[in-house]
């Protein structure tokens, strides 16, 4: 039996706790990194890159990751609807949409990825994170799509980008990829 799915669930669980209990003490101007989103993105990014015969299994992985990532994001969420209610599971829908967008982007860029993977990774990550923040803003800002570009947003993007960059190499190390054409930064 594969331990892949229980490990993914456990990882999301631990990261959710870290994000809400440990990292607030290391905030930068009130910004705490979204570790769940970072792990979610890393998993779907490398999952989409895999060439599999049965495309549905790939979708299944994507849905599974989105569901659990969305669940753990919402369980600790303190975002409320304008009428004071909370919706459990709304992040699942957001992350599914992000997953589909990532899949579409990866499809169009599939031929160039092997050489400069880190750039594709970071750029698609920024795009996905931007989309996710817009969705978050929908709930907390009376369903307005406008994002308030203040200093906190930029710090949030930067903070998450740095951690995503570290996560990329950690995942690569774990997966033991042997692509020698990978451009190494720093």
């Amino acid at each position: 039996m594969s331990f892949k799915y229980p490990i993914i669930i456990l990882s999301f669980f631990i990261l959710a706790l870290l994000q809400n209990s440990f990292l607030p003490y290391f905030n930068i101007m009130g910004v705490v990194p979204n570790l769940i989103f970072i792990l979610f993105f890393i998993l779907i990014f490398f999952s989409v890159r895999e060439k599999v015969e049965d495309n549905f299994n790939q979708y299944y992985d994507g849905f599974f990751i989105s569901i659990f990532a969305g669940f753990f994001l919402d369980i600790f969420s303190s975002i409320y609807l304008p009428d004071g209610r909370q919706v459990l599971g709304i992040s699942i829908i957001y992350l599914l949409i992000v997953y589909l967008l990532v899949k579409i982007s990866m499809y169009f860029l599939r031929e160039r990825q092997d050489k400069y993977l880190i750039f594709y990774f970071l750029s698609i990550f920024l795009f996905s994170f931007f989309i996710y923040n817009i969705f978050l803003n929908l709930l907390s800002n009376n369903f307005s799509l406008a994002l308030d570009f203040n200093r906190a947003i930029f710090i949030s993007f930067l903070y998450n980008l740095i951690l995503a960059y570290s996560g990329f190499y950690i995942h690569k190390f774990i997966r033991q990829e042997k692509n020698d054409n990978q451009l190494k930064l720093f």
Partner: protein
Amino acid sequence: MNVYIKKENLLLKKIITGAVILFLLIVFLNIFQRQIRNSFYLISYPISSFFQKTGSKISLFSESFLNAKELKNENNELRNDNQKLLSEVSLLQGYLRENLASKEILDNNKSNNFNIVLAKNIGLDISNDFILLDKGLDDGISENMPVISSQKVLYGKIFKVYKNFSQVMLISNKNSVLNVKISQNNEPTKTLINGAVKGRGNLSIYLDLIPFDAEIKEGDTLTTSALDGIFPRDFLVGKITIKNKNDLKPFQTAEVQTFFDAKNIENLFIITDYKQEK
């Protein structure tokens, strides 16, 4: 072609099935939202509190390094502020005591209408029974003015006046003699008995020149009688503690416990315009 269409239909069915399952899942999660959240928080509480404590400790530890210089400066500033505030508090407490004493004497002085000057006790000479006040000639003080407390307890009279200070001879001074009347608490209608309070030194006094046949009791209160022309009447002097009656002497004496507390008093009042009642 048929295979392709079949595959497409199968994929569509799977997508629809997935969408329905997702919808049902979200509905289920929201129906039992409270219970799910509660259970989740209960399970995660031990780990979450461990992470919180660890995060707090590491954060404090790193902050102490990063902010060491700022902490030191802040500490010094706080220490200086604290000292300033302590000094201000002490000053304000002094003002408060002055105000309370002034209020008290004004309440007590309503019937007498004396002019009084507030003065601070700045020195006590126990061996000679003198105290030093911070008011003098510049404040309109002159010799023989009575000195009392806010509770109308007699302390003494101005003995010597300087420009900004004055010396008060306490009633316990060996050279002090003042006329008093003895009030018997349980028999207020009885005829008042007059006597003389003399100083013994070391802040103690005794009662003398009580007529031999006068009946005095322990606990009787002594107040000024105004017969000497220096002190107004009805200011508190002391209380009889032990009476001494000797058949060989023409007068009775008694030990007196004073009402004044020269060691602890801070604010006193000098009566500046007392004139003997005619």
